[in-house]
């Protein structure tokens, strides 16, 4: 595996940074020449992971969210989103469709969407220490005009 390019960002868990994180990820991914649909999938998945940090990891405080994006082997986008918040005790349960601890403001679909929009989703979490979400999406190069 070769890392061809990367960015690292850190920002406070203000909800106004959700759109910033999406735009930053889309801007970085643009060098892989993704389709509009692929860009949509990337923005959606980043939005889900960052929103989880804001809503669940730091429910009553402002904490730091870090986002690292890498291009691997010139064709894979790796997205790592990390918080140092509350953590998740039962990951298997948390990742079930419709499971939420967030009440009526949430639908419990975040992990399900990340899983289906990306090629790979890996979640690591330690209660009291934080959560790291790693996602991978291959952007295949197309030939000719599109």
């Amino acid at each position, binding site marked *: 595996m070769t890392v061809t390019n990367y960015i690292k960002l850190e920002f406070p868990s203000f*909800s106004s940074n959700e759109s910033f994180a999406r735009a930053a990820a889309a801007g970085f991914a643009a060098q892989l020449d993704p389709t509009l649909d692929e860009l949509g999938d990337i923005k*959606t998945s980043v939005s*889900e992971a960052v929103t989880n940090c804001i809503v669940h990891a730091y429910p009553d405080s402002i904490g730091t969210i870090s986002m690292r994006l890498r291009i691997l082997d010139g064709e894979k986008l790796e997205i790592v989103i990390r918080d140092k918040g509350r953590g998740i005790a039962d990951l298997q349960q948390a990742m079930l469709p419709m499971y939420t601890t967030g009440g009526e403001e949430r639908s419990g*679909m*975040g992990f*399900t969407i990340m899983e289906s*929009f990306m090629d790979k989703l890996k979640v690591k979490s330690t209660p009291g220490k934080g959560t790291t979400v790693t996602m991978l999406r291959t952007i295949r190069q197309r030939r000719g005009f599109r």
Partner: protein
Amino acid sequence: MKIASEYSDGRLTVFLAGELDHHSAKTAVDGIADSIDRYLPRDLVLDLTQLGFMDSSGIAVIVRSYKKMRSAGGRMYIENPQTQPLKVLDASGIDRMIPIAAKREVTT
């Protein structure tokens, strides 16, 4: 997130424009609820023509609006979602509760 509404003959159409995420969800929920309370419509149509982005926070907004309409005996429809919002709607399976329609082309 911009929100506008239109009412005639028992049908309330709410237009959502921009990006619907956790940051803008409260504006959307409150805006839709206020319009429902004002017009007490039989049908609520959520027009997504101008909505460029939506994530799972939008699903919760739609489900809450649906519950509000249903508890008043009304119906709800989603109209004309763009590709990205439609993909999120599809992933959530919400079309089992709320019909999603592409807008009919106006032929002249």
